[in-house]
């Protein structure tokens, strides 16, 4: 779903299969032609758990309506807070294996500084507020994952109220 806000555009998408990063970034670049900077971040599935065990699968459960709404809300917040022209958030759900892309955040703007900041901000909010429930599977069985202390501190850096979550 792509939405225009005062000539700027936000794209939020929940992907059920592998994210085509090149196609998404090309689409972002074309949505904001003539701007000087495109910054992107890819989050990928780690091969080891926090406890150092081998990870076989990461599973992201989602909500049929609230998950996409949360991606949209976070992407729009990034666009509003910084002087940027376009924001894309593409997030996987379902089962993934190590190395796969879980999330792609792309920001286009006139200047690189704002684009870097907006991407960083959007990622910090996604890590704590996006409506997903994560489980990891491995030789240890199945384990639920919750946001870490560090994720929470990263989120607090931006000095904002929790946005209705």
């Amino acid at each position, binding site marked *: 779903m792509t939405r225009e806000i005062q000539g700027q555009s936000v794209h939020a998408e929940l992907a059920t299969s592998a994210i085509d990063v090149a196609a998404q970034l090309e689409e972002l670049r074309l949505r904001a032609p003539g701007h000087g900077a495109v910054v992107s971040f890819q*989050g990928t599935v780690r091969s080891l758990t926090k406890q150092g065990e081998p990870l076989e699968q990461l599973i*992201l*459960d989602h*909500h049929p*309506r*609230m998950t996409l*709404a949360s991606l949209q809300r976070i992407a729009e917040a990034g666009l509003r807070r910084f002087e940027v022209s376009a924001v894309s958030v593409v*997030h996987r759900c379902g089962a993934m294996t190590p190395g796969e892309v*879980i*999330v792609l955040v792309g920001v286009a703007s006139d200047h690189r500084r704002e684009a870097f900041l907006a991407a960083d901000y959007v990622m910090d909010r*996604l*890590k*704590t*507020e*996006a*409506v*997903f*429930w*994560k489980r990891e599977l491995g030789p240890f069985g199945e384990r*639920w*994952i*919750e*946001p870490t202390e560090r*994720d929470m501190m990263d989120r607090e850096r931006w000095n904002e109220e929790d946005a*209705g*979550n």
Partner: protein
Amino acid sequence: MRGFLARPASPAAITEYNVLSDDQWHGVMPCVCQIKSRGLQARLILAVTSCIRYGKRVSGGPGPMVDGERMQIEFYGRIAASFGGAAQVEIPEAGLPVSGLKALLASRFNVDAVLHRAVRAAVNNEFVPESHVIRPGDTVEFLSPVSGG
């Protein structure tokens, strides 16, 4: 919260019970109660007609559940496994606060984890507080704390 039965169920000297669910509700609601009688304890649902703060009298007494509308409730995240993803309960026509519905679910399905404040209710796709009154016809879901992306 601790309550007292205004009309004991029987002369069998059930003299007090603890309401294990939230205490901010005035109206008809089912509460999970712990009954003490002659040193024995039991857990059951009572229809409480007025529920007030700790140490004060709770009027009403044990009674049948109020007839109401059958509602399908869905669960997401860790809590979903305890309910097999969904559950059906009767909601009184007058409605029921989130805390009361949690108490009903905990008792009916024997899942205490749903009582935790971190398990949040969403009504019609928006998060609502524990005091929010759910009405028949609402779309009600319970969500475990999100993991983030």
